[in-house]
């Protein structure tokens, strides 16, 4: 008999679904990274070019958002200690999001407005089901914690982002947005990357980084300020962009974001330094590297508001924010989460009965570090080449990124067959 009081929701119930989510996400990851390496002239043109928008949506929806949705099905119950509500929605959300993103990306690639609208509608419908599932789960919360509040805000921004995206797709057909379309596109991008993804990553990192590093006894106050600063900054930035104010006012409107990011980076470094587990986990190494890109991306964003030439810097900004910050966190967390999910399926039931490997034993940490190096340098190369208008540098950077992606997927895929018995084992 097992009496597991206080354990509500704290079990990975759907590891097989989560692994399917990982499979879809990794496929999009490979398509984007390889596609960009084959189409590098795109990285020397406009950031609003339809082909580039196809890649951006495939990356942010097909890779990052699909994985984030999968993570939240597992993590929200863990973060808030509640049972997941509407668990059966998972396969529908995954299917709708995968097909919708593919149609949307194809719509951008061929610039067929009906495909954009159809794909966008499917994405919104799938995410609506997901948001209802998350809202139903959050409704069960009796004692909110800060991480849960972060997730709730992130979910709200996700809703705003996709609704705005669908409105813009419909505008291609009906033309009701007029000259505000360009400004709305900027707001849409920032709601997605800062409101949805950054708030989610920040909130989940406050849950996972102390857990993976065994860090205890740190103050939660900075995390509260970060949440407030990022929310205020996003709101003021959106207003300033929509009102098309002066560059200086726009930059001032973004200052709370800069302050929030600086505070977050300092706080994360402090927590990682306080860890009891001295050996630094691979996911923490990725996290530390991603923080450098977060700072660089934020500074570049403020620079763009202050009139850095958009045609030279916008794509570099995207590389630093999406590839450097979001990308490194997602790849790093994948190196942590995939082995645990696979381990749970392959060995979870045998713990305590026989000798089983540890999740970390299923993965090559050395290869993970090679991926970290290749990806990090590749992002800098692609961004710098785009700013300096050097096609050869963009090409080398893009190939490094693609190579890193294939090596990462190989490493993660090998966890399914790895014996993992050549290292320390337990059980």
């Amino acid at each position, binding site marked *: *008999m097992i009496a597991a009081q206080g354990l509500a929701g704290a*079990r*990975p119930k759907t590891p097989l679904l989560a692994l399917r989510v990982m499979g879809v996400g990794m496929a999009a990851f490979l398509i984007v990274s390889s596609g960009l390496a084959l189409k590098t002239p795109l990285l020397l043109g406009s950031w609003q070019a339809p082909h580039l928008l196809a890649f951006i949506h495939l990356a942010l929806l097909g890779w990052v958002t699909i994985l984030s949705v999968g993570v939240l099905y597992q993590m929200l119950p863990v*973060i808030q*200690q509640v049972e997941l509500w509407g668990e059966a929605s998972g396969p529908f959300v995954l299917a709708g999001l995968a097909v919708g993103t593919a149609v949307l990306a194809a719509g951008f690639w061929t610039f067929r407005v009906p495909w954009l609208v159809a794909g966008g509608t499917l994405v919104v419908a799938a995410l609506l089901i997901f948001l209802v599932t998350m809202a139903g789960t959050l409704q069960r919360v009796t004692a909110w914690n800060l991480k849960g509040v972060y997730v709730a805000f992130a979910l709200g921004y996700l809703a705003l982002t996709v609704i705005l995206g669908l409105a813009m797709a419909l505008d291609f057909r009906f033309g009701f947005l007029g000259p505000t379309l360009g400004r709305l596109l900027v707001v849409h991008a920032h709601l997605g990357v800062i409101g949805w993804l950054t708030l989610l990553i920040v909130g989940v990192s406050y849950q996972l980084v102390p857990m993976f590093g*065994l860090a205890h006894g740190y103050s939660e106050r900075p995390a509260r300020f970060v949440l407030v600063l990022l929310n205020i900054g996003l709101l003021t930035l959106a207003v300033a962009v929509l009102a098309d104010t002066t560059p200086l006012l726009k930059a001032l409107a973004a200052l709370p974001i800069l302050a929030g990011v600086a505070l977050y980076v300092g706080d994360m470094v402090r927590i990682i330094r306080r860890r009891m587990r001295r050996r630094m986990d691979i996911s923490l190494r990725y996290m530390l590297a991603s923080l450098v890109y977060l700072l660089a991306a934020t500074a570049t964003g403020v620079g763009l508001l202050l009139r850095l030439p958009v045609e030279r810097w916008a794509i570099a900004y995207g590389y630093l924010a999406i590839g450097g910050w979001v990308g490194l966190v997602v790849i790093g967390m994948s190196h942590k989460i995939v082995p645990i999910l696979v381990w*749970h399926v392959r060995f979870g039931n045998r713990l305590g009965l026989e000798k089983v490997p540890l999740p*970390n034993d299923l993965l090559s940490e050395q290869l993970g570090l090679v991926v970290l190096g290749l990806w990090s340098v590749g992002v800098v190369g692609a961004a710098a080449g785009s700013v300096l208008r050097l096609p050869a540098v963009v090409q080398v950077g893009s190939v490094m990124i693609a190579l890193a992606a294939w090596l990462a997927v190989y490493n993660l895929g090998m966890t399914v067959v790895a014996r993992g018995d050549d290292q320390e084992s*337990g059980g």
Partner: protein
Amino acid sequence: MTELSADGVRSALRFVFDPELGLNVVDLGLIRDITVQDGYVTVQMTLSTPACPLAGTIVQGVEQAVRALEPVTAVDVQLVWDPPWSPEQISPEGRKQLGW
């Protein structure tokens, strides 16, 4: 038939690892109390955080490890949260393994 003791159960639990940390549940300081009476074993344990994603797996591992012992007839694994776990509860051996 050999007599089972709390120490015997504790020794068996040294082979149940927290999969994420790679440290056994005894040295990690998760086992709070063990009572053995007529083959009925009660284990009171905690987790490093109530939000541990592998909580169910670890608890099941403890239950399976104890059930495999002779002459256990029943196992009751109880999770307790008060006082909460803190790193000070890690054994000297565990600290060494974590690189302290």
